[in-house]
């Protein structure tokens, strides 16, 4: 990254910014190489391993200072041959929203303004899966309420993801293990992906995320639960910081009725394959051909 800016016939974005920053640095007399700052760096997937390592170190130092405790920012890559998938048992879910809040705590969502990656929809048994009459704001003393069933939704990690296709800057993509991720430092906040997503799974940080230091989960992943800046989009990452370390996502572990199942689609002995082989399975809005990795099934 320390080589001088190249000049060729079609200057890239980086060359342009590099030259611009060079002028600014010369003007102010600063002797910092501006191409090392997050704003001027290359796309994440074009960075060399040492550049990524330095970026993570700087990020850890910055977040640790900001929150007054040690924050780690990992960048564990996908495991070869692993393809994640998720399954949710609609005959078990009682709509208790434990998953919603476990997710918030694990993934450092903003408490105020409120950001929830999981939305639990209450539906009428008489109407079936019907988004037009679903209610995400049901306020009940006890659940499940008679005559209703519950459909929790979050990012469906589509194989043919409209959000990825629509992002104008390539800030979101699907990893080889199937997780659709966002580089919060590359996102420009245009929210095209939000309008493209048929599941309402993406959420925008309209204000500065309010995250008390004592509630911060300090074990973070660059593409997952690290604290986000204002003006970027975020969503479920299957708890990338947990699943790439071999653990179950937080929502799976907290579900009191065991409705949430997670595993490797390529493992013939795994629970996901068992469900696909033995249960009645469907995906949301299959007519859109988004090919979700998130399956709903009837366990009973």
């Amino acid at each position: 990254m320390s080589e001088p800016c190249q000049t060729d016939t079609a200057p890239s974005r980086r060359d342009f910014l590099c030259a611009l920053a060079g002028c600014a640095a010369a003007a102010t007399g600063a002797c910092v190489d501006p191409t090392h700052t997050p704003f001027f760096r290359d796309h994440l997937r074009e960075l060399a391993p040492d550049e990524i390592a330095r970026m993570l170190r700087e990020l850890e130092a910055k977040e640790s200072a900001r929150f007054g405790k040690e924050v780690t920012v990992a960048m564990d890559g996908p495991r070869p041959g692993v393809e994640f998938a998720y399954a949710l048992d609609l005959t078990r879910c009682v709509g208790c929203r434990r998953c919603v809040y476990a997710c918030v705590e694990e993934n450092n969502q903003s408490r105020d303004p409120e950001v929830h990656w999981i939305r639990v929809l209450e539906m009428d048994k008489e109407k079936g899966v019907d988004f037009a009459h679903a209610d995400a704001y049901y306020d009940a003393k006890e659940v499940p309420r008679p005559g209703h069933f519950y459909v929790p939704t979050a990012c469906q990690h589509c194989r043919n993801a409209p959000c990825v296709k629509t992002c104008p800057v390539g800030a979101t993509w699907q990893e080889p293990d199937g997780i659709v991720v966002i580089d919060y430092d590359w996102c420009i906040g245009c929210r095209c992906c939000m309008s493209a997503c048929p599941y309402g799974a993406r959420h925008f940080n309209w204000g500065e995320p309010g995250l008390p230091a004592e509630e911060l989960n300090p074990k973070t992943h660059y593409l997952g639960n690290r604290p986000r800046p204002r003006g970027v989009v975020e969503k479920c990452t299957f708890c990338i910081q947990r699943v790439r370390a071999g653990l179950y996502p937080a929502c799976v572990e907290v579900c009191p009725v065991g409705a949430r199942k997670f595993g490797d689609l390529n493992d013939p002995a795994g629970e996901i394959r068992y469900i696909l082989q033995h249960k009645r399975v469907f995906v949301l809005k299959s007519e859109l051909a988004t090919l979700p990795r998130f399956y709903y099934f009837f366990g009973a």
Partner: protein
Amino acid sequence: MKRTRCARPRRSLAPVLLLGTLAAGACGRHEEVALVLWQEGLPTSSPAAQGFQVPPPPFTAGVFPCTDCHDPEIPVNTRRRDLVTAHTEIRLQHDEEHRWCLDCHDAGNRDMLHLAGGELVPFEESYRLCGQCHGDKYRDWRAGVHGRRTGRWDGEKTYLLCVHCHNSHAPRFQPIEPKPPPTPPRRTP
């Protein structure tokens, strides 16, 4: 010594469990390992040997071992009746027209349960007892699909016993209080 066996899972079985898990993972037949052990009628020494790591059963404080109160010297009253002197808090709502205590609890060994065929099973293997009637759930549970599992998707998992979620005397799930709803979006005036 039976008592010790029921009260806490044997520590020394941990390596067996690990080997079992590894073997199951290697041949990709977690479920069948358990099945083979079961079908051959081998003495199933512990859930771990069957491929399931389970936490200890959720006994109410002070009720186990049962022989603390049920003195083996005193003859057992095997007459079906309403309990008035002890266990009055138990309200059987589990096929109560056809079942009662000694269908599952063993009269000869009060610290054990028994299967329909008479085989004694410790409380930590109660899933075998439940599986006699609820075979479909038992099959799904063994595959990790019915019930909650924690641990690693790529390795060691902790299963919960049926009775960790279902009260064996009244197994229907009771309604629970939900966490607060999200704040609805504000309308701009």
